[in-house]
Structures are given as structure tokens and as C-alpha cells.
């Protein structure tokens, strides 16, 4: 079996938001919509303050609450663990948005204009209107089109850039690592073996596919 997951080494992440920009560039999300975000945590009070940059997005949960509640089967789990949305089936009921504990989903009815209404849509936005995403649920796809392309051409997702999500490719610190957790010899399995890690909101038992490395073992 294959299950693709993302590992974020938060010792390495410097909060540069390159992954955010790469995602935006690759997926042409509407203004105001970010499938990949990096949160800025400040913990403690002066003088004992710590800072952590936490990449977030869809966790492609094993027991995805969004897929369970979806009345149309538009949200579904692929055999490789990626949680996908069939935009043509989705009725935009937004139930999945309420069911996701990671605020990973959006519904855009009328896209914002990047520079306000008076300037209208930018030229590049007009070229990729993505009208199929209008008024339905949307979220990070783990760049499933790149993975599908890669696996169809004998490439290894997480190793070969053409088969790897854009955010992981773009990361300047190699803090985002993508791979198959079901393969014990994969890059992500190795990292999880050698580092202490946590998943966000573990107590909710979603089986999150996003692991945060916080200390070497």
C-alpha cells in the first residue's frame, strides 16, 4: 500500500513563506485563498519567548471527517491516501468545512480581486479562472496531478521534483518533506524514525497525514 504524507521539520522552517508562494503559483488559488500556509507561533512571555513557524494545510487525514460528512461523495479518499474533491459533484454545502479541524477548506463564491474591485482581475488570473472551483469546496490537493504524472512516468513522489508537491520542492530549508509513510525505507519513514514528532490535534483522532518533527531522537 501507499500513503503519502507531509513531514515538516519545524527546527528548520524559518517562516519564509516560499512554500505558500509556490502553492499559489502552481495551483492559481483565488486571492485570499491559501492551500498552504505557514503560521507564526509565539510561545511564552518575555524574556522566555520562543517562536515556531508551522506549515499547515490539508492533512489528508486517514479518518477524514470531511469525507465522512460529505453528502455527495465529492470528497473522497484515493487509494494513495490523498483526500480529493470532485468539483463536479460538490454542491457547496460547506459541511466539510465545518467538519475539518484544521481549517483547511474554503468555498469561494465570487473571487476577490487581488488589487480591489476597481482594478478587476489580473491578467494571469483571467488565464486560470478555475471556474470549476467556484462555489464548491476546495483545499490542498497534495499536488495530486504532479504525483499522478510522476507515478505514470516511473518517478518517485517526494524524491523526483516532477512528482513532488510544489511546496516541498520550493522549501529553501528542506523543511517540508513529502513521501510514502507505508514504505519503511522512504524518506519520510526514515525521518519519523530518527526524530520526535507530533501531529496537530492528535486527540481528535483524524489520523493526520502531516507530521511535525520537533527534536532529534
Amino acid at each position: 500500500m501507499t500513503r503519502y504524507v507531509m513531514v515538516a521539520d519545524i527546527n528548520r522552517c524559518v517562516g519564509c513563506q516560499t512554500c505558500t508562494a509556490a502553492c499559489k503559483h502552481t495551483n492559481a488559488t483565488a486571492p485570499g485563498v491559501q492551500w498552504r500556509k505557514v503560521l507564526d507561533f509565539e510561545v511564552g512571555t518575555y524574556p522566555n519567548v520562543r517562536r515556531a513557524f508551522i506549515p499547515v494545510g490539508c492533512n489528508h487525514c486517514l479518518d477524514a471527517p470531511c469525507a465522512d460528512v460529505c453528502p455527495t461523495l465529492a470528497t473522497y479518499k484515493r487509494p494513495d491516501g490523498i483526500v480529493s474533491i470532485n468539483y463536479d459533484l460538490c454542491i457547496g454545502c460547506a459541511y466539510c468545512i465545518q467538519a475539518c479541524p484544521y481549517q483547511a477548506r474554503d468555498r469561494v463564491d465570487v473571487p476577490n480581486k487581488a488589487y480591489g474591485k476597481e482594478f478587476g482581475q489580473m491578467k494571469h488570473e483571467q488565464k486560470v479562472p478555475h471556474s470549476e472551483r467556484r462555489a464548491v469546496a476546495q483545499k490542498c490537493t497534495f499536488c495530486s496531478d504532479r504525483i499522478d504524472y510522476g507515478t505514470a512516468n516511473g518517478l518517485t513522489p517526494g524524491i523526483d521534483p516532477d512528482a513532488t508537491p510544489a511546496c516541498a520542492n520550493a522549501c529553501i530549508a528542506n523543511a517540508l518533506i513529502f513521501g510514502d509513510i507505508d514504505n519503511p525505507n522512504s524518506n519520510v519513514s526514515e525521518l519519523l524514525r530518527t526524530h520526535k514528532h507530533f501531529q496537530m490535534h492528535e486527540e481528535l483522532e483524524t489520523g493526520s497525514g502531516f507530521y511535525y518533527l520537533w527534536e532529534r531522537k
Partner: protein
Amino acid sequence: MLAPTLQKRWDWRAAGNFICGGTGTGLMIIAATLSTMGLNTTAYALLASVLVTAGLGLVWLEIGRPLRSMNVFRNPATSWMTREGMVAILLIPMGLLTFFTESSSLLVLSALPAAFFLFAQARILHMAKGIPAWRTNAINPLILSTGLTEGMGVLLILIGLTAGNIEAFFKGYGWIVALSLVFLRGVAWINYRYSLANNAPEATLKVLERSNIVIVLLGIATPIVLLFMGKHYVAYQLPLAATAGLFMVFCGWFCKYQIIIYAAYYQGFSIAHTPARGGGKSGPGLKPGWRLPQ
């Protein structure tokens, strides 16, 4: 940004479905129950069906792609929204048929899909794992008990329209049923608040704390007093019962509106640890915006 933010996706239209659907199905179940106690209640089936239809109509106005709404029936295996839609197809015509045939047996039968619909509504909220105010187990008894109490409330508001019903209500067990429902809803509300206390977004708890006084005074104490007065002051039974009904309905609608619109903060974000960074040491985590057990 890190702390839980208020959901804006389901607005008054979604709340309207829980309000109308809950009251409508509660009315159907209570009308059926009281019909077995000698009250003439088949006419309420029409109002119950209209309320359920209105609730679903409001949801239809809210969804992004209303022309594809028939896709809602595709996932009966796991989605309570699908199940709610499916049972409505049975419930609405059964209610209409009950009204036109004036059949008490059909009314009792209609209470079954009504109960399933009401349960589905509770489960819809319960399965919304992203919203702590909804996903608690205690939401189930609260939605069920308030739906039934609202149904009883509507029935009492209109009880004067059918001759003999008010007398039968106070002579028989009807008023005991009403009292028990108000009481049970009160218990469900306390249980609901208790289930979230000290382990929920701070903003959610503040909304519930603000709502508490309204719910306890107007939704629990007032109808109980009015129902007891109705039992004792026979000459004023009709206005007393109708006023008790008004408070029963108002409180349920208020409670659901608060929970769905104002208390519905998302989970927010949290980390279990801060990183070790180079040769440094790792540190504690953070869950911003939450009131946590001390």
C-alpha cells in the same frame, strides 16, 4: 489567526433549518404522542411538514450549487446530511397525508420519520468535528430535547384552535409531558455546558455563559411556572398554556441560534512542542484561545 475563529459559512439559513426542522419534527412527534392521550392533533401534521420543508428550503438557498442539490442523496453510508434529506422525502408527504385524512394512526406513523429526522439533525452537528461547540456528545440530547420542547410549544400556542384540547391537555398527562420536556431540556442544556466547560475555545464559552441566563430564566423557569399555574387556574388555562408555549419555542430557537451562529468557533491551531533549533532545547507547546482544564 491562531486562536479559534468564528465560522461564517453556515449563516441564518442553516440555523433556520435546525430551527424549523427541529420544531417541525418535534411538533409531529408531540402531536402523535398527545393524540394517543385523547387530544385531536392531526391538523398539526400540516404545520410540521411545512416547517420541515421551509427548513430544507433555507438550506437550499445557502448551498453554493443549488442546481446540483440532488447529489445530496449520494452518501447514505456515512453522511447524516444525506440521511436527513432521504427521510424528509418520506416525512413531508406523510405529514400532508395525515392532515388530509385526519388519521391518528398515520400521525403516529409519521412520528417515526420525524424522530429520525430530528436525530439526523443532532448528528449533523455532532459530526462537525471542526467546531468544538457542535462536536460534543452532549449536543445530541440537547438538539433532541429542544426539538421536542419546541414542538410542544407550538402545539400549546395553537391549542385553542381545536375545541376540547386544552381541557384534555390539563386533565390528562399532557401537561406532565410538557413539564418533563422543559425539565429535560434544562438538564440537557446544563449537561451541554458542562461537557464544554474548561475545554473549549474561550470565545465559545463566553457566548454560552451569556446565553445561560436567558435559557434558564425564560426557557426553563418561566414555562414551568406557567404550566403549574395553568393546572391550578382553570379559567386562564388557554392563555397560560399559550404563553408557556411561546417561551418554550423562543428559548429553543434562541439556544440553537446561539450555538450555530455565535458559539461556533473553529478548533483553531495548536502545537504540542516548540522546536529545538540547532543545539538548543525544545520547549512547551501552545493552544491559543482555549480555556483548558487547570
